[in-house]
């Protein structure tokens, strides 16, 4: 055998496999992760935003509601995509079609599946956030430089949920908890983590809950980047918080994948 194996190569093979499978079934996931957020931006930003701005909302970062909403929605959409893109492929690969299980009959190990899976999610998040940023510029919701700068925080926000969701999903034998997470976890997070209004408007205890979610930190970073305004906490703190979720989720996922698949 002349194949030289480096540590990252197996993960790239998994990434490639995900890309090949995606090339075949790209339409529906693309519509749900790109088109749906844009509908939100148009309806809430332009429609509702028109009303908000008329009542005078000068203290909103960015000056207009549309400019306030766009970076928040970019991060919140990445969070949603991070959950969906992580949970269902793991379900499919480990529990339904078991293509991840079949992959383990090759030289690949569970950690390669985790690494390749998260690399693929990162690419999908990057594509989704970039598409959203372009649309936000076209709609006049952000200037090109600010929109481009908000893409990075968006990808980090998505990964900060994708990694722990992958780690957790692999341990589930049935769907109901995952569906509960999406219905009762993701939706409130989407609505109340500073995307549509500043969390200062929340009652005290809820404000603390919102501030503990990775999404709020991502929204703060994305908004700071888009409208050139300092975030609630130093940027390094927000970044470190997101990084902790990503790295923690990733390491736990390597552990839970191995425990579920090698037994």
């Amino acid at each position: 055998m002349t194949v030289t194996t480096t540590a990252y190569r197996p993960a790239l093979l998994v990434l490639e496999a995900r890309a090949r499978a995606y090339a075949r079934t790209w339409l529906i996931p693309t519509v749900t992760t790109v088109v749906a957020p844009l509908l939100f931006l148009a309806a809430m930003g332009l429609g509702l935003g028109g009303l908000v701005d008329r009542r005078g909302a000068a203290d909103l970062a960015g000056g207009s509601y549309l400019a306030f909403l766009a970076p928040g929605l970019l991060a919140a959409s990445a969070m949603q995509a991070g959950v969906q893109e992580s949970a269902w492929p793991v379900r499919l690969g480990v529990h339904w079609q078991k293509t991840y299980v079949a992959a383990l009959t090759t030289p690949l190990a569970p950690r390669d599946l985790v690494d390749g899976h998260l690399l693929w999610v990162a690419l999908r998040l990057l594509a989704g956030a970039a598409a959203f940023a372009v649309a936000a510029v076209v709609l006049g919701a952000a200037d090109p430089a600010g929109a481009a700068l908000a893409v990075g925080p968006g990808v980090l926000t998505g990964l900060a949920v994708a990694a722990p969701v992958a780690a957790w999903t692999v341990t589930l034998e049935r769907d109901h908890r995952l569906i509960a997470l999406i219905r009762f976890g993701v939706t409130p997070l989407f609505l109340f983590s500073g995307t549509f209004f500043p969390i200062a408007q929340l009652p005290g205890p809820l404000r603390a809950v919102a501030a503990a979610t990775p999404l709020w930190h991502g929204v703060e970073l994305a908004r700071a980047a888009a409208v050139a305004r300092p975030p609630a906490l130093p940027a390094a703190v927000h970044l470190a918080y997101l990084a902790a979720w990503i790295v923690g989720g990733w390491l736990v996922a390597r552990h839970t994948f191995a425990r579920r698949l090698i037994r």
Partner: protein
Amino acid sequence: MSDVIEARGLVKRFGAFTAVDGIDVRVGRGEAFGFLGPNGAGKSSTMRMIGAVSPPTAGHLRVLGRDPATDGPAIRRRLGVVPQEDMLDTELTVAENLLIHGRYFGLPVRDLRPRIARLLDFVQLADRAGDRVEPLSGGMKRRLVIARALLNDPELLLLDEPTTGLDPQARHLVWDRLYRLKQQGVTLVLTTHYMDEAEQLCDRLVVMDAGRIVAEGSPRDLVAAHATREVLELRFPPGGRNGELAALEGIADRVEELPDRVLLYTADAERAAAAVTARGLRPDGVVVRRSTLEDVFLRLTGRSLVE
């Protein structure tokens, strides 16, 4: 030449449950070897340990001369695996499934394309290469999984219940392909609870029950050692059997009573049938047949293979 598989005192426990309870197995290069036993006998657990995806709880195991606990990837690179479930991506085409799996071995796409064409030819799926997997029949999916297991040109092919759930015609197509592989010198290790599958494909097999090996040998030797040459099967009307059993005394070497029939083990079943008639018994059904591995299993464990 060293053995392809070498296991001594191999044990697999899941919590308090012991799936494999100290088995010794050796499989030589080019052999077709079988694990025969009912569901839950420990066959699949054994296969997963040999496939280097399940660490043994105790015992010694070498596959292709290496230790699966430390050399898993290196072993799996040289194995072909047909798992019990197909594990195909049903949204993708036949050829795409093979390409993606082949890439996991790091094989270049330019080498994989002709290899995939050749393998699809071999498993008689060449005309379905561009079709989605989902609508394929169970037998076609199974043959596709066999092609997938051959992508890396394996030295050892592991097949976990290769034909379970297939109709007879589909099973024979699979058996035919496996027989060809055997003729080409590929080492085959398979599990089955079909005695006809074991008889058709295996040079040598072990009979497993409750995590242990209860017998070992060629199908012919096992039948010779644990059963008579022929069997007379009698069916009696439900409930009307008590008197008959006593009346059968002395006709055969051994009598086994099953829920639906009575088996008489004897060297000459025709003669036994004549004796049954001579004693005035009138069973609903009379079948004369040769002994099979099913009878061996019944003899060794007191139970049928397929319940």
